[in-house]
């Protein structure tokens, strides 16, 4: 993974000193609340319902075991012994004190980490496929490009006060889009053209929140050397023309929609003409330097599907289940990608205790070259596990609550922290997740239902991505009471779509039974090969609506 050099290290060090001074001036009343607000947000610090929340950047989800141990340690000493992995591959601490944040940042800087631009109206952490670099059908490893974007976007002097937040996601496979790129402000799809040159299909104007939209293609192919000048051009057009009078209409998607993609493209191209070929054009030597950080680890020559593995698969239904759901094929023979799930019933989705983080770091050291990834679905990934060590790892993962074999199934929910923590939320989301986990606690049944993306957000800001869940649940406030609106038909992959609202919202205690009726209808209506989303697309929303609102009898 990427390693800081003197320049990277100096920059985070200076940032720590800057934020320490800003915090000191705020506490001394030298900086007003209003002035401190964007400064602390650009450093990932929110003031939440009960305490500040600090969001630590995990660039494109890559973590070393040493970094994860530092996060565990910070969680123990400055928080209540846990952290929350977010859909943008970051980690949130819910209980630090404001005064302690500069010290936390100093400790993070020691392990090449920071909280820069994890919030605020600036370019946020770039995200990508959690399987980057280890899957067979990848065009190229997207991580060197993510690192290039990370550096370009970090402390970009022109784009720190955009109309609204700005999120970029990168995908490099035709077969899947695990980074939900089409619902980002910019989605980048790595491509190779007929001449074998690497470039990007650029999608712009996607996003969730109050007005969810799937992005549109602005360019089919931007050569990789032109990536930064093209991004500069897009964001410069947005910075100057995006709406600033209404924060709900300030995202780039609103500008793209208002102008139409052709007019927007024209503005970008006109701007790009001035920038293209200039100093920000990336030389080959830089791509080579960055690629040098993402070389293959010392893989052994191993046999695919060793006897010990096939034996265990035949003899242990529990192991076979875990293997089927929570592991994924690796480009190297004899290796497997393993997801450590953070979706155990009774624990908020994405939460990990400091003890679990330490344990995951140990497992990474023992089984996966000391590295981990955070996934968009709020799980941890060990990317390089020997197949002959899977049984051992499974046993260890079970002990630590990492082996709930439900990856991709109904209960592998994406869920924001909701009203239990977040000051913006209209409603709680964690109890809804719990209710669904309790309703669908039978593993055989869950397996029979198959793949369903169920996403829960506690408010319109859509941190739980409810719009792109096959089933989405949104917390709403009705005269001080918490209700839940259900939408269906959303998807976040290459077939991205925005879900449609089913109808009037439900009371909190109804959600489990409503989900049950929706799933029962699917099971009843599906053809043999159909996933939930396929059946929905074939039969439409109406039967689901009837089922959801049917009175229990």
């Amino acid at each position, binding site marked *: 993974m990427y390693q800081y050099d003197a320049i990277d290290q100096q920059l985070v060090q200076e940032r720590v000193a800057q934020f320490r001074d800003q915090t000191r001036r705020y506490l001394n009343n030298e900086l007003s609340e209003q002035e401190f607000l964007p400064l602390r947000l650009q450093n990932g610090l929110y003031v939440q319902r009960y305490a500040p929340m600090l969001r630590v950047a995990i660039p494109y989800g890559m973590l070393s075991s040493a970094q994860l141990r530092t996060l565990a340690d910070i969680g123990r000493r400055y928080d209540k012994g846990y952290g929350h992995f977010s859909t943008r591959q970051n980690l949130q601490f819910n209980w630090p004190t404001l005064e302690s944040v500069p010290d936390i940042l100093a400790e993070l800087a020691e392990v090449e980490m920071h909280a820069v631009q994890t919030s605020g109206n600036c370019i946020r952490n770039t995200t990508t496929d959690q399987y980057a670099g280890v899957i067979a059908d990848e065009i190229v490893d997207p991580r060197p490009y993510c690192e290039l974007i990370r550096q370009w976007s970090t402390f970009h002097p*022109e784009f*720190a006060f955009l109309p609204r937040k700005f999120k970029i996601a990168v995908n490099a496979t035709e077969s899947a889009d695990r980074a939900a790129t089409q619902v980002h402000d910019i989605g980048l799809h790595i491509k190779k053209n007929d001449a074998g040159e690497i470039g990007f299909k650029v999608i712009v104007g996607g996003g969730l929140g109050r007005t969810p939209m799937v992005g549109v293609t602005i360019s089919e192919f931007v050569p990789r050397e032109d990536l930064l000048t093209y991004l500069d051009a897009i964001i410069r057009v947005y910075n100057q023309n995006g709406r*600033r009078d209404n924060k709900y209409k300030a995202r780039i998607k609103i500008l793209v929609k208002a102008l139409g993609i052709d007019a927007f493209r024209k503005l970008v191209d006109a701007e790009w003409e*001035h920038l293209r070929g200039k*100093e920000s054009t990336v*030389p080959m030597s830089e791509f080579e330097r960055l690629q040098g950080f993402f070389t293959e680890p010392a893989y052994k020559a191993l046999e695919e599907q060793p006897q010990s593995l096939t034996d265990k698969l035949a003899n242990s239904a529990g192991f076979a289940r875990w293997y089927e759901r929570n592991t994924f094929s690796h480009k190297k023979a004899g290796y497997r990608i393993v997801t450590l799930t953070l979706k155990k019933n009774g624990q908020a989705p994405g939460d990990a205790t400091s003890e679990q983080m330490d344990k995951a770091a140990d497992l990474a050291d023992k089984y996966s070259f000391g590295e981990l990834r955070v996934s968009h679905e709020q799980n941890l990934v060990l990317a390089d596990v020997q197949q002959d060590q899977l049984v051992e790892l499974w046993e260890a993962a079970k002990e630590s609550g990492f082996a709930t074999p439900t990856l991709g199934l109904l209960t592998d929910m994406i869920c924001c922290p909701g009203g239990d923590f977040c000051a913006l939320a209209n409603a709680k989301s964690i109890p809804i997740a719990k209710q669904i986990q309790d309703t669908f606690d039978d593993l055989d049944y869950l397996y029979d239902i198959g793949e369903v993306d169920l996403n829960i957000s506690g408010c319109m800001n859509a941190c739980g991505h409810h719009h792109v869940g096959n089933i989405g649940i949104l917390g709403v406030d009705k005269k001080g009471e918490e209700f839940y609106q259900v939408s269906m038909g959303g998807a976040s992959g290459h077939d991205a779509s925005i879900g449609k609202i089913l109808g009037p919202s439900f009371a909190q205690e109804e959600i489990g039974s409503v989900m049950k009726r929706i799933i029962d209808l699917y099971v009843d209506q599906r053809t043999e090969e159909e996933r939930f989303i396929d059946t929905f697309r074939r039969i439409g929303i109406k039967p689901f609506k009837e089922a959801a609102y049917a009175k229990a009898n």
Partner: protein
Amino acid sequence: MQKLIKDGAIVDNTYSLVNDAEQVISENSIVPMQQWIENADTLGKVAGIWIDAGEGVEALENQDLSQLDVVAVNFPAFADGRGFSYGRLVRERLGFKGEVRAIGNFIPDQLGYLLRCGFSAFDFEQDVNLEKALELHKPFSVAYQGDVADPRPVFLRRG
């Protein structure tokens, strides 16, 4: 006389900002960009112009800016970042060599970024302790991106 920060020092503000049609215009005036463009023949010599957020810099593309001492950019609110792009465009696209002045409601903590975007003078509308603001009058000592001071991104500078 009101003070401002210019080229890293606290100095007297020798120009006067024109933001009302009744004001008398002199050689020391900084006049609205549109007024300057539309009344080129009648205005006579002025110190400079100011660009408001939302106006953009396109209208200046065919103008001779070399006769101006100062181009000012207004920040209606410090969170309104349009001026950062304007500063760069005035320097990098229009090649203006004189003073680029930030006016309006920006804050001292933004000076590092403003300097990198080509601003050389800072006239705070709000009551700001300029001595303290001067302590923030420096970018980080390293940067990833090219900027007005040095157009080379870090990858052209890494040894």
